């Protein structure tokens, strides 16, 4: 009980900080950037300026949300109103940014671009904080989940109504549509492949370390080394090994294993993914209730059956938490593939950086952030489901 009270008090602090950040972001000088063309430096403008009257509506929404968050209203009402205000922010700002961009193109030329600036992104982050905090006041359940995804639905609706077509990132998307989805799928397959390998290796090494105490330092010692090796150095070290292998073994060559490309990417990403999964598996199994494992042995279960029926199922929520960390980490980490000829969303990031085309960078970064957030939420739900037997559930 005391725990959830603390969470709820903390939620007020987070919500009000979110509002403060939102107001600062609305006033920040670089909310939107108006450029004559895609690589031009551009003319910054705050959201308040750029949105006209709607800018004042945005400010009022933040103030109102802060007041409600601090108010002594009943929790359910407070949670509902503040969440709705939080959900309105991304919808309002994106819609307004879209129309500001359209106006700008109409008043200048078709090669003109409107980019989303720091103030805009901070606003989205502030809204995320607000929603995250305010949902703590709501009863868990379907309606709470629906409210969390309300802004996503709003953004999709605005985008499909064509309200965003003149925004820089959407223009970059339109220009790169076919390659975007190809790289997106490639990116996802790197993540899936690496986490799958990481899951198998992580489970094996986690169980091994938990069962054979003498192997624990060996297992985590080697995983630690992999973990601290900088990505590029790691790929550099792999390069001669992999090219050597494919030169000598025909099968590897046929598979397209080379010093660059997908092979080193998968190896590096998997070795990062192993660590959190192995750590959590080990911790979960090592900390199982002694009475339960003792009883399992006492009724005559063999080691494998105990692992399959008792230890792994009981460790599952914690293992999934490890998978969640690995997924989020790998989703971001797979950017590196763009640098070493492996493709993926990183391509847009590095190409954008070399051309100083911020919007192209964003075309790579925004889906990565969205994917990471999605994985985080989805696996959180799975953790909760698999832990149904704990007294808290």
């Amino acid at each position: 009980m005391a725990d959830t009270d603390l969470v709820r008090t903390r939620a007020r602090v987070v919500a009000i900080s979110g509002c403060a950040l939102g107001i600062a972001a609305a006033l920040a000088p670089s909310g939107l950037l108006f450029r004559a063309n895609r690589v031009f430096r551009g003319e910054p403008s705050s959201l308040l300026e750029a949105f006209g009257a709607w800018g004042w509506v945005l400010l009022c929404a933040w103030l109102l949300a802060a007041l409600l968050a601090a108010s002594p209203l009943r929790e359910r009402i407070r949670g509902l109103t503040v969440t709705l205000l939080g959900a309105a922010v991304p919808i309002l700002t994106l819609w307004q940014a879209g129309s500001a961009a359209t106006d700008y193109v109409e008043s200048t030329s078709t090669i003109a671009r409107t980019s989303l600036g720091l103030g805009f992104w901070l606003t989205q982050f502030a809204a995320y904080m607000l929603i995250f905090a305010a949902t703590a006041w709501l009863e868990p359940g379907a309606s709470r989940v629906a409210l969390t995804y309300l802004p996503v639905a709003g953004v999709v609706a605005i985008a499909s109504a064509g309200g965003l077509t003149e925004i820089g990132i959407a223009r970059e998307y339109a220009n790169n549509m076919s390659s975007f989805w190809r790289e997106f799928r490639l990116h996802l397959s790197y993540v899936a492949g690496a986490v799958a390998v990481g899951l198998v290796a992580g489970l094996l090494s986690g169980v091994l370390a938990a069962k054979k105490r003498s192997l624990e330092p060996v297992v985590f010692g080697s995983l630690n080394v992999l973990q601290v090796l900088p990505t590029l150095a790691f790929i550099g070290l792999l390069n001669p090994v992999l090219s050597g292998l494919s030169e000598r073994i025909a099968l590897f060559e046929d598979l397209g294993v080379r010093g660059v490309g997908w092979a080193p990417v998968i190896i590096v990403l998997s070795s990062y993914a192993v660590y959190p999964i192995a750590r959590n598996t080990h911790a979960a199994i090592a900390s199982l209730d002694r009475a339960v494992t003792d009883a399992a042995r006492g009724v005559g279960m063999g080691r494998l059956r105990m692992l399959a029926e008792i230890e792994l199922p009981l460790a599952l929520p914690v293992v999934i938490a490890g998978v969640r960390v690995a997924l989020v980490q790998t989703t971001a980490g797979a950017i590196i593939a763009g640098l070493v000829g492996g493709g993926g969303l990183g391509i847009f990031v590095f190409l954008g950086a070399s051309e100083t085309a911020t919007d192209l960078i964003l075309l790579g970064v925004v889906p990565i952030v969205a994917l990471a957030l999605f994985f985080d939420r989805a696996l959180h739900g799975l953790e909760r489901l698999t832990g149904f037997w704990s007294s808290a559930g």
Partner: protein
Amino acid sequence: MIEIADLTKRYGSFTAVDSVSLTVEQGQFTVLLGPSGSGKTTVLRMINRMVEPTSGRVLLNGVDTATMRPESLRRTMGYVIQNTGLFPNMTIRRNVATVPRLLGWDRRRIEERVSEMLDLVGLDPDTYASKYPHQLSGGEAQRVGVARALAADPPVLLMDEPFGAVDPLTRERLQLEMKRLHAKLRKTIVFVTHDIDEAVLLADRIALLREGHLEQYAAPEKLWIEPASEFVKGFFGENLGLRIMARHCLSSVPFKPLDPSVSCAAAPHVEDSVTLKEALAELVGAKATKLIVCHEGAPRGVVDFETLVKALGDGSAPA
């Protein structure tokens, strides 16, 4: 029958169990009793090979357990521990079905057996079978623990402080039910506790351990009348006589004959189903020197203080 011969367990230079020998007869209820750290759990766990002995042997019906596969051995011995050790990720049904499943029984037989076992320990199968352990009270969980241990009808039951973590009232209820179960099923039971009342109430024989040594192994009455050492005498203390009186039913005592004209309502009286201890309490409570013993309202005889004490005198009173 379990024969324990010269059983010893050392951890490094520390001797946890020192050359313990004792025999548990078929159907006998043996309690391992002793202060904390005296080696009770270690002896118990060497019986089902959860702990491997440093030396000595355990024979199960004449067969050395060291020659059996530990898993198979354990499936023939029910095992109940203090914190129940119920599997939290399984329903009560699946928990109780564990050993039958390991033994490969068919589904129908398992399902019937689970209901039978829950009934036996006083839990309604329809209400409880689909619950999860976290939805049970401590006492209910402990009953499920006993049901799980009995499910495959093992001839032997090993219990390590099974009622140690429940409240005193529930504990007393569970003890009486355990006594009833033993009378009904006649399992060979080895039961660990450090609670003297529990030991004296339940045991056919008590093995008193001290720092890994077996001090004495005998029926509670014998421990009272002929303690083997000062330690034994001191451990049970002054109250052992009273505790033993709680083991015996008044109907087992030879009453003095009675003038047939006396009615049960006229004088201080007790039913013959009470224990000797309760009869004594009644005697003191009524400030009387004798009590009329009645059976369903009909007078049967008279007991006085002397009869009550003498009933234990030779240590041979039937339990």
